[in-house]
Protein backbone atom coordinates (compact mmCIF):
# COMPACT_ATOMS: atom_id res chain seq x y z
CA UNK A 1 0.00 0.00 0.00
CA UNK A 2 1.57 3.33 -1.06
CA UNK A 3 2.09 6.01 1.63
CA UNK A 4 0.37 9.29 0.75
CA UNK A 5 3.13 11.34 2.44
CA UNK A 6 5.65 9.95 -0.02
CA UNK A 7 3.68 10.90 -3.13
CA UNK A 8 4.44 13.94 -5.25
CA UNK A 9 2.12 15.56 -7.78
CA UNK A 10 3.27 14.68 -11.27
CA UNK A 11 4.86 11.38 -10.23
CA UNK A 12 4.24 8.46 -12.57
CA UNK A 13 3.05 5.65 -10.31
CA UNK A 14 2.31 3.03 -12.94
CA UNK A 15 2.77 2.43 -16.64
CA UNK A 16 1.76 -0.56 -18.76
CA UNK A 17 1.16 -1.69 -22.35
CA UNK A 18 -1.79 -3.81 -23.39
CA UNK A 19 -2.11 -5.81 -26.59
CA UNK A 20 -5.64 -6.02 -27.94
CA UNK A 21 -6.56 -8.49 -30.66
CA UNK A 22 -9.93 -9.67 -31.93
CA UNK A 23 -9.97 -12.46 -29.33
CA UNK A 24 -9.75 -9.78 -26.61
CA UNK A 25 -12.89 -8.11 -27.99
CA UNK A 26 -14.87 -11.34 -28.14
CA UNK A 27 -13.80 -12.21 -24.59
CA UNK A 28 -14.91 -8.77 -23.36
CA UNK A 29 -18.22 -9.04 -25.23
CA UNK A 30 -18.95 -12.31 -23.41
CA UNK A 31 -17.88 -11.06 -19.98
CA UNK A 32 -19.73 -7.75 -20.19
CA UNK A 33 -22.79 -8.75 -22.20
CA UNK A 34 -22.14 -6.05 -24.82
CA UNK A 35 -22.57 -7.96 -28.08
CA UNK A 36 -22.76 -4.97 -30.43
CA UNK A 37 -21.38 -6.48 -33.68
CA UNK A 38 -19.29 -3.36 -34.46
CA UNK A 39 -16.86 -4.90 -31.97
CA UNK A 40 -16.30 -8.13 -33.91
CA UNK A 41 -17.68 -7.91 -37.48
CA UNK A 42 -15.86 -5.94 -40.18
CA UNK A 43 -18.91 -5.83 -42.47
CA UNK A 44 -21.16 -4.36 -39.77
CA UNK A 45 -18.50 -1.82 -38.72
CA UNK A 46 -18.08 -0.73 -42.36
CA UNK A 47 -21.85 -0.50 -42.93
CA UNK A 48 -22.18 2.16 -40.21
CA UNK A 49 -19.20 4.15 -41.51
CA UNK A 50 -16.57 3.13 -38.95
CA UNK A 51 -12.88 2.89 -39.90
CA UNK A 52 -12.85 -0.75 -38.74
CA UNK A 53 -13.80 -3.03 -35.86
CA UNK A 54 -13.51 -1.01 -32.65
CA UNK A 55 -12.60 -2.02 -29.12
CA UNK A 56 -15.46 -1.48 -26.67
CA UNK A 57 -14.92 1.90 -24.98
CA UNK A 58 -15.64 0.12 -21.71
CA UNK A 59 -12.84 -2.37 -22.41
CA UNK A 60 -10.39 0.53 -22.83
CA UNK A 61 -11.74 2.10 -19.64
CA UNK A 62 -11.55 -1.24 -17.82
CA UNK A 63 -7.95 -2.04 -18.70
CA UNK A 64 -6.77 1.53 -18.14
CA UNK A 65 -7.32 1.25 -14.41
CA UNK A 66 -5.49 -2.05 -14.01
CA UNK A 67 -2.05 -0.42 -13.46
CA UNK A 68 -3.54 1.67 -10.63
CA UNK A 69 -5.18 -1.39 -9.05
CA UNK A 70 -1.85 -3.25 -9.17
CA UNK A 71 -0.07 -0.26 -7.64
CA UNK A 72 -2.65 -0.06 -4.82
CA UNK A 73 -2.72 -3.83 -4.34
CA UNK A 74 -6.46 -3.67 -3.65
CA UNK A 75 -9.23 -2.59 -6.06
CA UNK A 76 -11.39 -1.87 -3.00
CA UNK A 77 -9.46 1.39 -2.59
CA UNK A 78 -10.98 2.93 -5.72
CA UNK A 79 -13.52 5.59 -4.72
CA UNK A 80 -14.37 7.07 -8.09
CA UNK A 81 -13.35 6.51 -11.71
CA UNK A 82 -14.52 8.50 -14.71
CA UNK A 83 -13.48 8.93 -18.34
CA UNK A 84 -14.51 10.67 -21.53
CA UNK A 85 -14.27 8.60 -24.72
CA UNK A 86 -12.45 10.78 -27.24
CA UNK A 87 -11.08 8.52 -29.99
CA UNK A 88 -11.83 4.97 -31.12
CA UNK A 89 -9.34 2.10 -30.91
CA UNK A 90 -9.35 0.18 -34.19
CA UNK A 91 -8.42 -3.48 -33.77
CA UNK A 92 -7.23 -5.24 -36.95
CA UNK A 93 -8.42 -8.74 -37.97
CA UNK A 94 -4.81 -9.91 -37.87
CA UNK A 95 -2.22 -8.54 -35.48
CA UNK A 96 -3.08 -6.28 -32.60
CA UNK A 97 -3.61 -2.79 -31.28
CA UNK A 98 -1.17 -1.67 -28.60
CA UNK A 99 -2.59 0.57 -25.89
CA UNK A 100 -0.29 2.40 -23.45
CA UNK A 101 -1.46 3.57 -20.05
CA UNK A 102 0.46 6.02 -17.86
CA UNK A 103 -0.88 6.87 -14.38
CA UNK A 104 0.24 10.08 -12.66
CA UNK A 105 -0.52 11.70 -9.32
CA UNK A 106 -2.65 14.78 -10.01
CA UNK A 107 -4.03 15.89 -6.64
CA UNK A 108 -3.43 14.97 -2.98
CA UNK A 109 -5.81 15.39 -0.07
CA UNK A 110 -3.55 14.63 2.89
CA UNK A 111 -6.28 15.12 5.48
CA UNK A 112 -8.75 12.69 3.92
CA UNK A 113 -5.89 10.46 2.70
CA UNK A 114 -7.22 10.58 -0.83
CA UNK A 115 -5.36 11.00 -4.09
CA UNK A 116 -6.48 11.78 -7.61
CA UNK A 117 -4.64 9.89 -10.29
CA UNK A 118 -4.93 10.92 -13.92
CA UNK A 119 -4.61 8.27 -16.60
CA UNK A 120 -3.18 8.86 -20.03
CA UNK A 121 -4.35 6.11 -22.35
CA UNK A 122 -2.92 6.25 -25.85
CA UNK A 123 -3.16 4.27 -29.06
CA UNK A 124 -1.29 5.02 -32.26
CA UNK A 125 0.13 8.23 -30.76
CA UNK A 126 -3.27 9.66 -29.77
CA UNK A 127 -4.99 9.87 -26.40
CA UNK A 128 -8.17 7.78 -26.61
CA UNK A 129 -9.59 8.79 -23.22
CA UNK A 130 -10.01 12.31 -21.94
CA UNK A 131 -10.50 13.57 -18.39
CA UNK A 132 -9.59 10.11 -17.17
CA UNK A 133 -9.49 10.50 -13.41
CA UNK A 134 -9.41 8.09 -10.50
CA UNK A 135 -9.88 8.96 -6.83
CA UNK A 136 -8.30 6.48 -4.45
CA UNK A 137 -8.26 6.03 -0.69
CA UNK A 138 -4.76 5.65 0.72
Amino acid sequence: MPEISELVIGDVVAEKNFNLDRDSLVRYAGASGDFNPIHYRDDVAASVGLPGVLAHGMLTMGLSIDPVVSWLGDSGKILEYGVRFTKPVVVPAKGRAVITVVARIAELDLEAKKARIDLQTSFDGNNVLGKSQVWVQL
Partner: protein
Amino acid sequence: MVNPNIQGKRYPRSAAYLVGREKIREFARATFASEESIDLAAAKAAGHSDLVAPPTFPIVLQEFGLKLVIADPEAGLDFSRVVHGEQKFVFQRPIVAGDLLTSELSVASVKSLGGNHMVVFDTEIFDENQVLVCTAISTLVVRGEDA
Protein backbone atom coordinates in the same frame (compact mmCIF):
# COMPACT_ATOMS: atom_id res chain seq x y z
CA MET B 1 -33.16 10.71 -31.69
CA VAL B 2 -34.52 10.75 -28.18
CA ASN B 3 -37.59 12.25 -26.53
CA PRO B 4 -36.46 15.20 -24.32
CA ASN B 5 -39.51 14.64 -22.08
CA ILE B 6 -37.93 11.55 -20.54
CA GLN B 7 -35.67 13.84 -18.46
CA GLY B 8 -36.36 12.90 -14.84
CA LYS B 9 -37.96 9.57 -15.70
CA ARG B 10 -37.13 6.66 -13.38
CA TYR B 11 -37.25 3.11 -14.67
CA PRO B 12 -38.33 0.14 -12.54
CA ARG B 13 -35.85 -1.51 -10.18
CA SER B 14 -34.02 -4.47 -11.72
CA ALA B 15 -34.32 -8.06 -10.56
CA ALA B 16 -31.75 -9.08 -7.94
CA TYR B 17 -28.27 -9.84 -9.30
CA LEU B 18 -26.02 -12.17 -7.31
CA VAL B 19 -22.37 -11.24 -7.86
CA GLY B 20 -20.48 -14.48 -8.48
CA ARG B 21 -16.82 -15.03 -7.66
CA GLU B 22 -16.14 -16.66 -11.04
CA LYS B 23 -18.06 -13.90 -12.85
CA ILE B 24 -15.71 -11.40 -11.20
CA ARG B 25 -12.72 -13.45 -12.38
CA GLU B 26 -14.14 -13.72 -15.91
CA PHE B 27 -14.77 -9.95 -16.10
CA ALA B 28 -11.38 -9.15 -14.54
CA ARG B 29 -9.50 -11.33 -17.03
CA ALA B 30 -11.45 -9.82 -19.93
CA THR B 31 -10.31 -6.36 -18.78
CA PHE B 32 -6.66 -7.49 -18.43
CA ALA B 33 -6.62 -7.37 -14.63
CA SER B 34 -3.59 -8.89 -12.94
CA GLU B 35 -4.04 -12.33 -11.36
CA GLU B 36 -3.15 -10.85 -7.94
CA SER B 37 -6.30 -8.72 -8.09
CA ILE B 38 -8.46 -11.86 -8.29
CA ASP B 39 -6.64 -13.82 -5.60
CA LEU B 40 -9.07 -14.76 -2.83
CA ALA B 41 -6.43 -14.95 -0.08
CA ALA B 42 -5.14 -11.48 -1.00
CA ALA B 43 -8.67 -10.04 -0.96
CA LYS B 44 -9.33 -11.52 2.49
CA ALA B 45 -5.96 -10.30 3.77
CA ALA B 46 -7.01 -6.79 2.64
CA GLY B 47 -10.11 -7.12 4.82
CA HIS B 48 -12.74 -8.01 2.21
CA SER B 49 -15.25 -10.82 2.71
CA ASP B 50 -14.60 -12.17 -0.79
CA LEU B 51 -13.14 -11.15 -4.16
CA VAL B 52 -13.57 -7.47 -5.05
CA ALA B 53 -15.12 -6.73 -8.43
CA PRO B 54 -13.04 -4.63 -10.85
CA PRO B 55 -13.94 -0.91 -10.79
CA THR B 56 -15.82 -1.04 -14.10
CA PHE B 57 -17.84 -4.16 -13.21
CA PRO B 58 -21.02 -2.13 -12.41
CA ILE B 59 -21.37 -1.62 -16.17
CA VAL B 60 -22.98 -5.08 -16.18
CA LEU B 61 -25.79 -3.71 -13.99
CA GLN B 62 -26.06 -0.42 -15.86
CA GLU B 63 -26.72 -2.47 -18.98
CA PHE B 64 -29.98 -3.87 -17.48
CA GLY B 65 -31.37 -0.35 -17.05
CA LEU B 66 -30.33 0.76 -20.52
CA LYS B 67 -32.19 -2.19 -22.02
CA LEU B 68 -35.37 -0.81 -20.42
CA VAL B 69 -34.77 2.58 -22.03
CA ILE B 70 -34.12 1.03 -25.43
CA ALA B 71 -37.36 -0.95 -25.14
CA ASP B 72 -39.34 2.09 -23.95
CA PRO B 73 -41.44 3.53 -26.82
CA GLU B 74 -41.75 6.88 -24.98
CA ALA B 75 -37.94 7.32 -24.99
CA GLY B 76 -37.66 6.78 -28.74
CA LEU B 77 -33.93 6.10 -28.39
CA ASP B 78 -32.41 4.94 -31.69
CA PHE B 79 -29.58 2.80 -30.40
CA SER B 80 -27.90 2.49 -33.79
CA ARG B 81 -27.12 6.23 -33.54
CA VAL B 82 -25.70 6.06 -30.03
CA VAL B 83 -22.07 6.73 -29.13
CA HIS B 84 -20.75 6.31 -25.58
CA GLY B 85 -19.54 9.77 -24.57
CA GLU B 86 -18.58 9.53 -20.92
CA GLN B 87 -18.73 7.04 -18.07
CA LYS B 88 -18.17 7.37 -14.36
CA PHE B 89 -18.48 5.13 -11.30
CA VAL B 90 -18.76 6.49 -7.77
CA PHE B 91 -18.35 3.90 -5.01
CA GLN B 92 -19.76 4.05 -1.48
CA ARG B 93 -18.05 0.71 -0.89
CA PRO B 94 -16.48 -1.94 -3.14
CA ILE B 95 -18.67 -4.61 -4.75
CA VAL B 96 -17.66 -8.09 -3.55
CA ALA B 97 -18.64 -11.61 -4.55
CA GLY B 98 -21.78 -12.68 -2.72
CA ASP B 99 -23.41 -9.23 -2.96
CA LEU B 100 -27.07 -9.38 -3.95
CA LEU B 101 -27.58 -6.18 -5.93
CA THR B 102 -30.46 -4.37 -7.57
CA SER B 103 -30.20 -1.32 -9.78
CA GLU B 104 -32.42 1.56 -10.75
CA LEU B 105 -31.82 3.85 -13.71
CA SER B 106 -33.06 7.41 -14.03
CA VAL B 107 -32.63 9.97 -16.77
CA ALA B 108 -30.64 12.83 -15.23
CA SER B 109 -30.69 15.11 -18.25
CA VAL B 110 -31.37 15.36 -21.97
CA LYS B 111 -29.62 18.18 -23.80
CA SER B 112 -29.48 19.27 -27.41
CA LEU B 113 -26.04 20.09 -28.74
CA GLY B 114 -25.31 20.90 -32.37
CA GLY B 115 -27.93 18.59 -33.84
CA ASN B 116 -27.07 15.80 -31.41
CA HIS B 117 -28.67 14.82 -28.12
CA MET B 118 -26.64 14.21 -24.98
CA VAL B 119 -28.43 11.98 -22.49
CA VAL B 120 -27.11 11.40 -18.97
CA PHE B 121 -28.28 8.26 -17.15
CA ASP B 122 -27.72 7.67 -13.44
CA THR B 123 -27.83 4.06 -12.32
CA GLU B 124 -27.98 3.57 -8.57
CA ILE B 125 -26.90 0.15 -7.33
CA PHE B 126 -28.15 -1.07 -3.95
CA ASP B 127 -27.28 -4.04 -1.77
CA GLU B 128 -29.86 -6.37 -0.23
CA ASN B 129 -30.27 -3.99 2.73
CA GLN B 130 -31.22 -1.23 0.25
CA VAL B 131 -28.00 0.63 0.99
CA LEU B 132 -26.43 2.48 -1.95
CA VAL B 133 -23.22 0.76 -3.07
CA CYS B 134 -22.33 2.53 -6.29
CA THR B 135 -23.66 5.05 -8.80
CA ALA B 136 -22.85 4.59 -12.47
CA ILE B 137 -23.19 7.75 -14.55
CA SER B 138 -23.28 7.34 -18.30
CA THR B 139 -23.44 10.01 -20.99
CA LEU B 140 -24.66 8.82 -24.37
CA VAL B 141 -24.47 10.93 -27.49
CA VAL B 142 -27.35 10.31 -29.88
CA ARG B 143 -26.28 11.50 -33.32
CA GLY B 144 -28.80 13.62 -35.21
CA GLU B 145 -30.28 12.51 -38.53
CA ASP B 146 -27.78 14.58 -40.54
CA ALA B 147 -24.74 13.87 -38.38
